[in-house]
């Protein structure tokens, strides 16, 4: 038996030495080489007629007695062909193959959009008062939670929502267009649909009229701030370009003259040494680079709003703040304004129509309480505004998107034409939030978010929906 210490040393040696052994041993056997696949010979590409979407995916065909192509346009006994999640054909006698899924129903129309919703985000985010212009709803959106609200929304035909964080905050942040009943990958359709602000709402109706009117002025100045911010950026870009060009020129010059400058300098050094003086370097001056403007996410959002790149939704109810708001936003030619709530908007109907300002209203249902700023809301406002030529949209204002068709009925009871109500739920909402090129009607090239109903769009119930690329039977 070896002494323990030696055993230990040898153990350590073995532990340490083994890898050293490997250094001097033969290298490990090379891995088995897989033979390279010989590339297939190139085939000449034939000119094929361009198809809308790749033909490999199975198609879905919706067949109905009435297809509501757009508000006011109905095709009788028509079909809609969908492939790859897009509408590829609308008409009669469309071509199908054995893989095509066929769904028959009474009526087909575009899925409904709830443009005033909090479905898809947690309630804390929806009621957060600390949001800023760059707070993004899309960041808080998730497919988890509110299982039944999402399910019932789909069953009622509401396939998309404009969901907003910071509903009651002065500046609510960026709203998002969501498919609340879809899985994570299909959830967010647009992560910056609009900027939301409130005017006279954030104090819960407790502020006096001067405070509310002042908020309208603040909104005006924030939009101005956005314009200035963008101007500063454009100016900077221009100045930078100029400076860079000038500097490049200067640098080229300096390089050209370098040899001479070097000789001159050496001469000067010699001279200084002769005179026993200290050699001073020649002073060099150049224009300073223009200062980069500080990037501010919130100002960036207001810049986009000021330039009409993002619609601005303002919730305002009282006549005083509505008047102030209209005045404060008058000068911004590119601004796209949507007023939500609008309880006291009746006197401003003509102005709103002239300035092309859409109004987003939440109908008041019997049994619902109209709190604070909303008290006094009357469903007859729908009729009043519509008659004056204002575009009216309908929203639920909360997370019960499934209520939208019922609220649409109340809007009709308040004087909105049936056709206008249908438009508000589909193409109208799509247009206002920059979705009309992809959603809102049953037209070739659009994304297929469609309903198959057992009756007219607002009366009947959906039996099937086509959403997020697949057909679902309800």
């Amino acid at each position: 038996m070896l002494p323990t210490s030696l055993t230990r040393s040898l153990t350590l040696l073995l532990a340490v030495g083994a890898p050293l052994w490997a250094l001097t041993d033969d290298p490990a056997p090379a891995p088995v080489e897989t033979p390279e696949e010989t590339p297939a010979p190139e085939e000449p590409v034939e000119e094929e007629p361009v198809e809308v979407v790749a033909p490999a995916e199975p198609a879905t065909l919706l067949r109905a007695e009435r297809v509501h192509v757009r508000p006011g346009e109905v095709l009788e006994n028509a079909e809609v062909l969908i492939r790859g999640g897009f509408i590829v054909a609308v008409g009669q006698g469309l071509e199908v193959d054995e893989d095509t899924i066929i769904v028959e129903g009474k009526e087909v129309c575009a899925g409904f959009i709830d443009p005033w919703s909090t479905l898809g985000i947690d309630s804390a985010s929806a009621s957060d008062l600390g949001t800023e212009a760059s707070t993004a709803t899309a960041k808080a959106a998730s497919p988890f939670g509110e299982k039944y609200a999402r399910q019932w929304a789909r069953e009622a035909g509401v396939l998309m929502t404009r969901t907003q964080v910071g509903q009651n905050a002065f500046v609510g942040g960026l709203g998002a267009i969501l498919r609340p009943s879809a899985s994570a990958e299909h959830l967010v359709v647009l992560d910056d649909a609009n900027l939301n602000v409130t005017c006279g709402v954030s104090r819960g109706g407790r502020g006096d009229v001067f405070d509310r009117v002042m908020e309208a002025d603040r909104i005006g100045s924030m939009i101005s701030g956005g314009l200035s911010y963008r101007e500063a950026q454009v100016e900077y870009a221009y100045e930078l370009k100029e400076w860079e060009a000038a500097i490049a020129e200067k640098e080229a010059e300096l390089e050209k003259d370098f040899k001479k400058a070097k000789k001159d300098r050496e001469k000067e050094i010699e001279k200084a040494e002769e005179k026993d003086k200290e050699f001073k370097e020649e002073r060099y001056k150049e224009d300073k680079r223009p200062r980069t403007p500080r990037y501010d996410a919130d100002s960036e959002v207001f810049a986009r709003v000021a330039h009409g790149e993002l619609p601005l939704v303002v919730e305002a109810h009282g006549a005083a703040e509505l008047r102030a708001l209209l005045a404060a936003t008058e000068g911004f030619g590119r601004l796209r304004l949507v007023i939500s709530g609008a309880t006291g908007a009746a006197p401003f109907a003509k102005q709103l129509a002239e300035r092309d300002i859409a109004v987003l209203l939440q109908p008041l249902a019997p049994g619902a309480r109209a709190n604070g700023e909303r008290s006094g809301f009357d469903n007859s406002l729908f009729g009043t505004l519509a008659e004056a030529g204002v575009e009216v949209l309908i929203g639920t204002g909360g997370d019960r998107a499934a209520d939208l068709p019922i609220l649409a009925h109340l809007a009709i009871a308040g004087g909105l034409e049936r056709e206008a109500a249908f438009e508000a739920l589909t193409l109208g909402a799509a247009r206002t939030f920059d979705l009309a090129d992809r959603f809102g009607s049953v037209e070739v090239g659009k994304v297929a978010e469609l309903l198959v109903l057992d009756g007219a769009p607002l009366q009947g119930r959906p039996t099937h929906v086509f959403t997020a690329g697949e057909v679902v039977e309800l």
Partner: protein
Amino acid sequence: MTIPRTLVQGALCASLLLGSLQVADAAAGDKLVIEAGRIITQAGDDIVDGVIVIENGRITAIGAAADVEKPWDAPVLGGPDFVASPGFVEAHSDSGMDRSNENLDVTPFLNVRDSIDPVSFYFEDCKRWGITTINVQQGNNTVVAGNGRIVKPTGMTVEEMTMRPNYGFKISIAPKGGKSRATQRQALERAFGDLRSELEELATDAQETKDYERREALAQGRDLEEGKAPGRAMTGTGWKVEGLENVDRAEIDEKILPLLEMVEGRHDVFLYCGAPMDVQPAIDFAAKNGLTARTTLVLDNSCWKAADAIAASGLSVVLDSNLVHVETDVVTEEETETFVPGVFAEKGIPFALSSANSSTNSLWFQAAVCVGHGMSPKDAMAAVTTTAAEIIGLGDQVGSLEVGKLANVLLLTGDPLDMTSFVEQAVVEGSVIYDRTKDVRNKHLYEGVEPRGAAAVETEEAELPSKDDAK
């Protein structure tokens, strides 16, 4: 040129012998032998009637008694009635600190060293319940919290307790108090976004200065020597700022420097998710900022719903001490119970368990509950030993009883997952840090032994109301 094998071996042997001779003198007092009727190694089969030899804080031999030679001069602990097991590893804990979170949102410049309380009951209890390695991180109520530290539950100062200083950062995706998910995300993005803008500004300024100096030299007719770059380029798998090598790292605000190091992949990050909706954002946040390779998710028990996303990301997780998630359906009023670790085990996601600060929820209890729900004892033990050690980067140091690893060994009166077992002695790095025979509190509870110096309490017989009084 290959060095002759014999020469190498010879040189090594010589140096080691020399070394060992020297070490042998000093090592005479640092040896320890542990005997046990059963040794759970967590590295293969259990050893019956086994022996562990410890020298200088590490395991030098382990095996059946017949196969292992015990050094004649080492004290012997244990005996055939005991079970030996690796000390438990707490992969993430916010206990043992004076306050677990700060008021400020983003505080990576802080360090838990300043708030760990070595005499906290938590550490005393860790000894009692066999937890020998603890990763102390700040609590969940934060946006980006300070630097954590791995400690052992013994020592009168934080330095004595420290196993690995300046380890790990805590980031929360779930909202800090007063924020909603939207504003929490915004605060996080702002923290890292501000970092990026700061760095870009510094880099641009440095480049500007460099260019200016070059032009100045040209104008003056002076040759400019290529200086060494004062800093180093940004590394990592996330976003990068070009030209950072021109910036002296000392110029970067020390408040945000830790964030830069995180993005460069130089720190482990613990991301807290409070709900399933936080999981995908957490994974995306980690990927965007180059943190994925060093991130562990710390999960609330409802996050099992997002297990698929976690499986796809390849991240490991630390589970909440509440192992069963109960949900009531609002419409049908049905209650569903989900055994959370089972979901992760099924999807092949590596997970560690965590304890709440009480004996009934300590690590061994959590593991035992897992066994109760059908997990194998080996898998349950792994979640509190080897997997936990891997997660905190100490997989080759602790978590199992193998030659070369630190000697963190528990001597228990029975199976560690048995409710009736006690830790009789706990050994950390070769030193006995806990002995139940000297545990005053334990004796007070179980044997009624009064602490020394306590005044004798006279118990009177309580007077119960007699039957006559009731009328």
